[in-house]
């Protein structure tokens, strides 16, 4: 599912991610407020709303020393599953592909 697949652009949504300051864990902005460890529990944004949400999340993360490296990434919902467009974000959301016993995928 390549990013170049323009015909499916409508279906691309955004989520906001970061690493937790104290332990580096990959986290996602939750609906409402706060952060969660699983992409399945993350808030999803339309393209237009994502920038505002990102700015707010960054300010909050700075203020509370909770999260670092806050940014948005693209994903699609395919058969009810949230699938990041880029391999990089898929690997962040799951764990290393060469050690499926480790990372979030292990606890799934």
């Amino acid at each position, binding site marked *: 599912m390549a990013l170049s697949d323009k015909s499916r652009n409508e279906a691309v949504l955004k989520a906001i991610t970061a690493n937790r300051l104290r332990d580096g864990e990959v986290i996602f902005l939750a609906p409402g407020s706060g952060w969660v460890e699983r992409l399945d529990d993350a808030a999803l944004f339309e393209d237009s709303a994502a920038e505002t949400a990102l700015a707010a999340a960054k300010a909050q993360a700075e203020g509370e020393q909770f999260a670092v490296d806050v940014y948005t990434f693209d994903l699609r919902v395919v058969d009810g599953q949230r699938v990041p467009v880029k*391999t990089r974000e898929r690997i962040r959301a799951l764990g290393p592909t060469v050690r499926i016993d480790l990372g979030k995928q292990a606890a799934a």
Partner: protein
Amino acid sequence: MNHIAPGRNAGVYSYDDIDRRFVAERVEQFRAQVERRLSGELTEDEFKPLRLMNGLYLQLHAYMLRIAVPYGVLTAQQLRKLAEIGRKYDKGYGHFTTRQNLQFNWIKLEDTPAILHELAEVDMHALQTSGNCVRNVTTDQFVGAARDEVVDGRVYAEILRQWTTLHPEFTFLPRKFKIAIMGSDADRAAIRVHDVGVFAKRNERGEVGFTFYVGGGLGRSPFIGKLVRDWVPEEDFVAYLEAILRVYNQYGRRDNIYKARIKILVHELGQEKFTQEVEEEFARLRGPKYRLAPEVVDEIRRRFGGPAYETLTDEPESFQAAKAANPDFARWVAVNVLAHKVPGYAAATISLKPAGGIPGDATSEQMELIADLADAHSFGELRVSHAQNLVLAHVRQDELFTLWTALEANGLGTPNAGLIGDIIACPGLDYCALANARSIPLAQAISARFADPARQQTIGELGIKISGCINACGHHHVGAIGILGVDKKGEEFYQITVGGDPTLTTAIGDILGPAVTADETVDAIEAIVEVYLSNRHDGERFIDTLKRVGHGPFKERVYAAH
């Protein structure tokens, strides 16, 4: 702090109280910095350079801690400590790197001060493993042991470590600075692709001197180090390096991170002008302050101690009998064992590259086993090679069979040092935040494809090196076959280069053709190997055949189906 520092006979440099106090102070300083970050007194922008100075990066899944293994030499006790840290603070394994260091992939910021404290107990640290400073000096993994060695590079690597650690002029260099030293004719440290490559040798009178190559490097723009001076006498070793670093500090491009390495400066000024600048600076600063006195060198050499070798002879009967009776052992000896300068001893490479395995990864259990074997067979000392393997450098030949039996029983007896299965691979997209593509799965697929040890031995010396992005941490430019991961519209592709050479006849590989998918890459390697085998003359290595027949036949076969 409890010091459980290494014993004297290990051939490992023994720290003195000044070294220990300094490392301990740095741990406490970082502990306070972490506290201030967690409480919000420091912002991330303020804190990031501080954590990097302590080897702590933020990667895809967590923090990554890069621990220095100065010039790649460790004691068994230090390796046990690394195993313990892996188990206690990480996920039970670590990754040995091309820079002879160890990286842990799942570290928590809040645990880091405790980890550094534990490391300091065994004289270890993560200093100079990141940032724009002089990084861990690397050298031959067989230093102090190889039969072909002319000068023991450890001594000079340690002098550099001491000289650079707190040097105020080297704290904010334009960019990172990597030095490699080699003390025998065979270059096992890839010195000409380092910022400074030092080739230590002796003149007719037996005096030690150094050839300096400057401005080598890999990454986005690969360069081969230029000869700046053929003979720098021992007493001028520090002065000459200081002169090089001063010229770099003065003219290095701080305005552009892509042009900040010394290789760009040497390239832009030209070899002649750069050399002239260095010589002028050297003439200015040469004097008592920078003179490396023979007594200092002797004292440092003394602090390494030396293994208490026994008087033995080469090829003892039991060793010969074991080889005759056990072809697998004989193969491992032929491939993984190197002649030692002391008769009756040998240096053994423990491959961390089992077929289908993750290059350079070792579990805590494996580290402990290897530490025990180092105690039993190699004076409690071992080395990390830039090929991401471990080395027991001083094993009695009549103990090699016992050693091999233990390794083999634990999946550590792979006979592939220097062969096609001994792949160098960076962490790539499975761990690294800068990656374009994964490196490890490709290394696994290739080593699985070429798993048969007999076939590997038939193919002979052929280094495959894989990087997940243009930063070239996996040295792909100097791989006989190099593989670079690229991102094509969100998909992982791989660009293949051939003809790279990391030894003194350094060459940067040439791109063979358009990038291909991971599966196609494995087939392409197979095709390249077939073309080589069907074209090679007696005794030719892959790169020799390639030089003789050119890229044509290889390219034709690899892209035949396209």
